[in-house]
């Protein structure tokens, strides 16, 4: 799970640099369920009013590895556990990735919008 804040989302497009690195921060759903990640990311990565959590994107470790292997030239994409004070589920995708791979990751990732109650003025 990757938090996408306002620096990487302008309401229309997601920045591929969210996955180019270096050392991309992610969080593991195996440790905390998806619903808990909203609160986790709001506390850990949001800095209101300038940096707000906009979206979360989800992609599996196996899918990441497959995208790397099938890319030309192939690249190894790994995820390493890296628990931090605010998030036991925190992990890192070490190193840098090309824009081509970052775009493929974004294309394959599932986007999660914030729950309705978190968006002022939005109704279910």
């Amino acid at each position, binding site marked *: 799970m990757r938090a996408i804040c306002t620096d990487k989302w*302008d309401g229309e497009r997601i*920045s*591929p*640099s969210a996955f180019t690195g270096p050392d991309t921060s992610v969080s593991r759903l195996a440790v905390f369920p998806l619903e808990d990640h909203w609160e986790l990311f709001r506390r850990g*990565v949001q800095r209101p009013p300038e940096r707000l959590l906009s979206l979360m994107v989800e992609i599996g470790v196996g899918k990441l590895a497959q995208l790397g292997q099938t890319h030309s030239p192939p690249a190894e994409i790994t995820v390493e556990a890296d628990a931090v004070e605010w998030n036991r589920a925190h992990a890192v995708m070490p190193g840098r990735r*090309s824009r*081509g791979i970052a*775009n493929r990751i974004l294309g394959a990732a599932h986007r999660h919008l914030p729950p309705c109650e978190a968006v002022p003025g939005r109704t279910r």
Partner: protein
Amino acid sequence: MPVLAPAYTQCAYRLAENLQPPSEPDRLAHAEPGSAAREELLLAKLGPRGWGRLHHFRRFYSPGWGEGRGRSLSPRATEAFFSFLAAARFPEGVQPSLFLTDEGGLELAWEENGEAVQVAFQPGRLELYRKGDGTDRELPLQRWDEAAQHLCP
């Protein structure tokens, strides 16, 4: 019984004249030369959304932003970004998105015939990407003109 400090008054002490705060008209910020032209360029090429985002990135993203590793906006990357913007011709009706990279660079993303095109101005290098022809490479930052010619001639 606690003793309260006496309230400060204007005549508690007096600053020497050259240490006095500037008079009201002097508090106006002085713009850098050419900044008005840059504002117009930003608005013309990226619209109010891009204009606002750049000001936001400049003003609020100090070193350590994000999860503690984000760098503030690089002046070199910003220079290359404006040079590129002046030379670039984006497809009709397309307004690129502007992002701040973790390394303190700026990134533009748009579509051409439905295919993604991107350029990132990182401190020290450019990252070019165009899905349509398989472009995915880096150039030194000073070669922004080559990037503009290749991505949006």
